[in-house]
């Protein structure tokens, strides 16, 4: 059977890994290539790098990091943050990224998802959806959680699938960095409504939160940052726990 994936996420700012809470309060957590290697050695299934500043200058730093990671690690990795065009995508894929994650640009210009998946294949196009719970339901936010997209999360998820996205990276802004557990209702709703894999993100905390996101949230993969960066758990510890809780993992 296909294993459920554990994906450490590295938020990169000015070439360094940092971690925040609810998308703000950023702290320094380490060197990206070094952390990537550590996770690889610890049995991470994939890696995600999010360039959270993504200005033109930082893009060049990111490209160098991507090249270095691709030379040293032989597991899939995704790069996201500030991707606006087919050219941006091409540049990252050529540098050695296996997938790119598109967020704000996908909302502003949905055709980009279609063009990119036709050009490079759906398998390398991940659409990131950042979601906040509001009275009227789950709403999509863009620009790193700063701006509402006035879109319903479920409708948007179905639409990105139709446009050719290969995976959805679904983040609960409310849970991001809180370690209170993933938003299981949101994850289950989206995962069961689309036929592409859903990577749950935001809220990874104790070990139960990880078995819950698979067993109850029906996620295909779980993304986590703080619990790994600050050595709360190793990836192997998480996987051993999941195995004993009836979640198929690669060890």
């Amino acid at each position: 059977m296909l294993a459920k994936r554990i994906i450490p996420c590295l938020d990169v700012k000015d070439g360094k890994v940092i971690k925040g809470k609810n998308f703000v309060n950023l702290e320094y957590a380490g060197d990206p290539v070094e952390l990537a290697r550590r996770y690889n050695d610890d049995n991470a299934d994939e890696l995600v790098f999010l360039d959270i500043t993504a200005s033109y200058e930082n893009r060049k730093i990111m490209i160098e990091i991507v090249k270095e990671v691709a030379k040293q690690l032989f597991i899939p990795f995704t790069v996201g943050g500030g991707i606006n065009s087919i050219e941006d995508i091409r540049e990252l894929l050529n540098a050695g990224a296996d997938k790119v994650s598109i967020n704000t640009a996908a909302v502003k210009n949905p055709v980009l998802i279609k063009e990119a998946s036709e050009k490079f294949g759906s398998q390398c196009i991940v659409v990131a959806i950042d979601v906040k719970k509001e009275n009227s339901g789950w709403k999509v936010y863009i620009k790193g959680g700063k701006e509402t997209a006035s879109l319903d999360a479920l409708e948007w998820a179905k639409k990105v699938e139709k446009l050719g996205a290969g995976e959805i990276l679904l983040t609960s802004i409310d849970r991001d960095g809180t370690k209170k557990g993933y938003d299981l209702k949101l994850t289950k709703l989206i995962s069961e409504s689309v036929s592409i894999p859903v990577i749950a993100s935001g809220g990874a905390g104790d070990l139960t939160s990880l078995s819950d996101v698979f067993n109850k949230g029906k996620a295909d993969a779980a993304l986590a940052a703080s619990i790994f960066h600050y050595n709360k758990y190793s990836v192997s510890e998480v996987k051993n726990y999941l195995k004993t809780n009836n979640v198929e993992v690669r060890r």
Partner: protein
Amino acid sequence: MIAIIDYGAGNLRSVKNALDCLQVDSRITNKATDILKADRLILPGDGSFGFMMDSLRKNKLEAPIKKSIQNGKPFLGICLGLQALFEESEENSNVKGFCIFKGKVVRFRKGKVPQIGWNNIISKKKGIFRDGYVYFVNSYYVVPEDRSIVATTTDYYGNFVSSIKQDNITAMQFHPEKSGDFGIELLRRWLKC
């Protein structure tokens, strides 16, 4: 020298990086002369079956690839590079494959499609393959008529053929270049066979 065949799509860099890590000389190329000259061939693949076959033909690479295979040159197909060896695919039914093996390429009927992630291969042939987890990204898989070429199978809502091996031809539906240390070991053993 190993020729990594470039038909204008796919992440060829990761295959090259893996071979660099194994310290073997390789070149990403779309030239027939390189293909004929090379000691070994790798045909990686991303994108669609139709796009790959059309580009290979447009770049006049079909004949040199087939000739090399017929002459006994070791060939490794990865992902679409496996599917290319068969007659046709449900993905683009009007496009012919290399027709080296009889059989079709069909789409998964169950589960989430594409299959993305780590799944187990169960080895049916000694030599290169062992049982273990490898990284897959595929919506389609091969159904060979001749079951004796099956090298590994994998369970995704039922068993499918995840690699084949016959004489100098080895081909994998998964990505050994993205399957961690286990994948690098598979490549190392292919280089020795």
